[in-house]
C-alpha cells in the first residue's frame, strides 16, 4: 500500500489555499453531516443499534478465524472458491490468475477500497487487462488518474466544472464531443458509455461491505446499481475484500445495514443492497458461472490482540471523515493514503507501518467527534494516541517535540521548578507584549502567532498571587 504522508503539512497548506477544493468540501456539511443527524433522529432505536452493532462486530472479530472458515465452507459447498491473500501482492496475483484463466480482456469494477489498497488497477493494466471503474465517482477518478479522496465519495474534492472538463477531454473517443455542463446530462453520458462496457466485460470485480458466515454471502451496497451490473453480466464474479468484513448471520448483517447508510449518507437505505451467494445454479436463467472471493489480510491479522484490534470493527461508512474538522478543511488527498481522515489515521499505520504514516495519527485535535458518530463506536482518538505512543517509544517523534516533552515532564515533577518556570515565562511574555498583546513569538510559539495574537499573563501566576494574598494552600 502506497503511503505518502511525509508531505502532509505542505499538502494540507496547499489544500487550504485551493479555492475550488474549499468550495467542494463545503458540500460535506449538508450532504453528510446534517443528513446523518436527520436519519439518526428518524430512527428511535439508532443508539441502541449502535451498541448492538459494536458487540456483534467485537464478537465476530474475537472469533474471526472460526467465522472465516464457516464462510469458506459455505462458499465452497455452493461451488464458489475462496482465496487467501497474505498481502497486496498475493491478492493481485490471485485476481490476475483468475482473469487469465477466463481469457479476460476487460474487467468491470464496482467501487472497492480494498482494490485501491492493493493498487489493483495499474497491475491489471500492466498485464494487458483493462479495468473499468463503473461507480461514477471512481470512473471520474480513473479518467483523471487520481486517487479517491473519500472512502465513500471518491470525487468529493472536485467541482462540477472539473468533471465537465474531464468528460470533455475523454469522451470524444466514444462519440460525445460536446462539453456538458448540466449534471443530469453528464450522468446520462457516462451511463451510456459505461453501459456498453458492462455488456462487453469478461469479468466483474466487486468489493464487499459484509460477508455473511452462515450463508457464504458477499453483500454489496450501492446507490447506482453498478455493483449489480458488474456482478450479473460477466461470466465471472470476483469479490475482493478484507478478512474483517465478516458478520455471523443474516440478521446481524441487516442490523449493520440499518446503520451503514444512515451513518454514511444519511439515507435510511441505499438504492441497492445485494447478497451474492455462490455462482449461478444449474436452473438459473442468468448469472456468472464462476464466483471467487479473495480474502485479503495485508496487516489486519497483526492488529488482533493489540490496542488497534477494535479498528477491525470498522464498516467503512466514512462518518468519521465527514465529521472530522481536519478532514473537512483539507480533504482526503493531503493524507497521502487511500484511507484518509480519522479511520485512516488509525488504519494506515497498521497496514503500512507507523514510520511511513507519522503525520496521520498526529494531525488530530482530539476533538472526539469521530468516535461520537462511529456506528460501531470505535475509540478512534484513543487509538491515534496509541500510535503516538508507539512513535514516541521508537523515537520517531520529532526531536524538538521530544525535548520539549522531556523538559516539561522534569519541570512538572517539581513544584519548585514549576513555579520558577511559571514566573520566568510570565515575565518574559509580559516583556514581549506590546500594547497588551503579543504579535510574534519565536520557536514553537511562531506556530501560534502566525495565525493569531496572544494576550500575555495579566500578572504573576495564580498560585503566586494566591499565596501572597494569604489564600489557603
Amino acid at each position, binding site marked *: 500500500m502506497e503511503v505518502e504522508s511525509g508531505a502532509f503539512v505542505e499538502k494540507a497548506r496547499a489544500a487550504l489555499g485551493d479555492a475550488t477544493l474549499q468550495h*467542494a468540501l463545503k*458540500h*460535506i456539511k449538508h*450532504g453528510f453531516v446534517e443528513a446523518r443527524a436527520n436519519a439518526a433522529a428518524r*430512527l428511535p*432505536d439508532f443508539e441502541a443499534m449502535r451498541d448492538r452493532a459494536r*458487540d*456483534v462486530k*467485537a*464478537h465476530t*472479530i474475537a472469533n474471526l478465524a472460526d467465522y472465516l472458515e464457516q464462510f469458506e465452507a459455505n462458499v465452497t459447498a455452493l461451488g464458489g472458491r475462496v*482465496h*487467501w491473500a*497474505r498481502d497486496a501482492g*498475493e491478492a493481485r496475483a490471485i485476481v490476475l490468475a483468475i482473469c487469465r484463466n477466463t481469457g479476460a480482456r476487460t474487467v468491470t469494477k464496482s467501487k472497492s477500497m480494498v482494490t485501491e489498497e492493493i493498487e489493483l488497477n495499474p497491475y491489471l493494466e500492466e498485464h494487458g487487462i483493462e479495468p473499468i471503474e*463503473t*461507480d461514477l*465517482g471512481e470512473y*471520474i477518478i480513473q479518467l483523471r488518474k487520481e486517487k479517491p479522496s473519500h472512502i465513500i465519495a*471518491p470525487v468529493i474534492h*472536485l467541482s*462540477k466544472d472539473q*468533471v465537465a472538463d474531464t468528460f470533455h477531454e475523454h469522451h470524444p473517443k466514444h462519440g460525445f464531443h460536446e462539453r456538458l455542463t448540466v*449534471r443530469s446530462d453528464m*450522468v446520462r453520458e457516462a*451511463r*451510456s458509455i*459505461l*453501459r456498453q462496457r458492462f*455488456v462487453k466485460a469478461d469479468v466483474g470485480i466487486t468489493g464487499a461491505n459484509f460477508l455473511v458466515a452462515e*450463508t*457464504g454471502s458477499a453483500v454489496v451496497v450501492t*446507490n*447506482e*446499481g453498478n455493483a*449489480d*451490473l458488474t456482478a450479473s453480466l460477466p461470466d465471472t464474479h470476483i469479490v475482493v475484500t478484507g*478478512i474483517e468484513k465478516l458478520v455471523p448471520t*443474516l*440478521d446481524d448483517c*441487516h442490523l449493520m445495514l440499518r446503520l451503514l447508510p444512515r451513518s454514511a449518507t444519511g439515507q*435510511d*437505505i*441505499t*438504492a*441497492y*443492497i*445485494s*447478497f451474492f*451467494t*455462490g455462482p*449461478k445454479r444449474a*436452473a438459473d*436463467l*442468468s448469472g456468472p458461472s464462476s464466483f471467487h472471493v479473495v480474502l485479503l*489480510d495485508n496487516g489486519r*491479522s497483526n492488529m488482533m*490482540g*493489540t*490496542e488497534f484490534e477494535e479498528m477491525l470493527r470498522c464498516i467503512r461508512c466514512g462518518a468519521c471523515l465527514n465529521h472530522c474538522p481536519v478532514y473537512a478543511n483539507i480533504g482526503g488527498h493531503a493524507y497521502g493514503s487511500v484511507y484518509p481522515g480519522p479511520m485512516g489515521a488509525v488504519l494506515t499505520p497498521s497496514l503500512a507501518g507507523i514510520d511511513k504514516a507519522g503525520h496521520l495519527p498526529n494531525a488530530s485535535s482530539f476533538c472526539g467527534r469521530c468516535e461520537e458518530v462511529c456506528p460501531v463506536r470505535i475509540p478512534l482518538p484513543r487509538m491515534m494516541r496509541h500510535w503516538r505512543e508507539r512513535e514516541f517509544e521508537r523515537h520517531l517523534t520529532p526531536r524538538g517535540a521530544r525535548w520539549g516533552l522531556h523538559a516539561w515532564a522534569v519541570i512538572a515533577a517539581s513544584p519548585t521548578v514549576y513555579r520558577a518556570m511559571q514566573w520566568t515565562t510570565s515575565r518574559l511574555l509580559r516583556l514581549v507584549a506590546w500594547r497588551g498583546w503579543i504579535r510574534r513569538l519565536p520557536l514553537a510559539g511562531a506556530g501560534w502567532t502566525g495565525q493569531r495574537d496572544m494576550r500575555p499573563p495579566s500578572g504573576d501566576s495564580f498560585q503566586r498571587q494566591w499565596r501572597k494574598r494569604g489564600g489557603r494552600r
Partner: protein
Amino acid sequence: MVADDSRAEILGRLRQAVPRQTADHAPPRAFRTWQAPGATEIQGRFVQRLEAARGTVEKVASLADVPEAVARYLAGQNLPARLNVAPELKSLMDFAAGALTVDDSLPVEDGRVVLTGCIAAVAETGTFVAASGPNRDPRLNYLAETLIVVVGADQIVEAYEEIWNRLRVRTGKEAPRLVSFITGPSRTADIEQTIEWGAHGPRRLHVLISDETP
C-alpha cells in the same frame, strides 16, 4: 502450496492472538421484527417509504388489471408502449389487452421499459426484493431505464429479516445466488453531493400493488 500457506498463516495469526474484545458475547441476535416509524398499517408504511425514496405507486385489484395499468402509466410518462416482461410474469397476464408490445431482448439500450415481479417487499424502507432463480432474470431490474414492479399485497413484510424466512434460508435451504434489496430508482450524488437519478439502473420506478399475488 503458497495458497495453503497463506490460509494457514492468516488463520494461525488470528487464533494465536488473544482478543481484547469480548469473545464470549452470546451469538448476537439482531432485533426481532421491528416496526419502523410511519403509517399504522403495513401497506401504508410501504407506500410512504417508497414514495420518500422517489418511487411511485398505484394499486390494482388483480393481475388481469396490470397490463392496462402499465399502458396507462407509460402513456402518462410519454413513453412508448413497448416493454420487456420478466419471465415469471409472462404467463400470468395478457399484454395484448393493454395494447402493449412485448420485446424480450435484453434491455441494454437507453429508454427500455421492464415489467417485473419480486419475491417480497419490505415496509421498513419501501423496498422490493429481487432474486435469481429458475424463472427469474434479475439483470432486468438493473438494465431497465423504466422499471415497473408488481408487488402482491401479501408479499409485503415488515422488516428485512423476514425475507430470509420467506426464502426458507433459515430452515436449511441454500440462499439463491442473488438476493437484491432495491429501494427507489438508481441514483448518484458523486458530483457535488447532489442527487441525480438513473445513474446506471432505472431512472423511474413504478410499483403496482396488486391484491392478487403473482
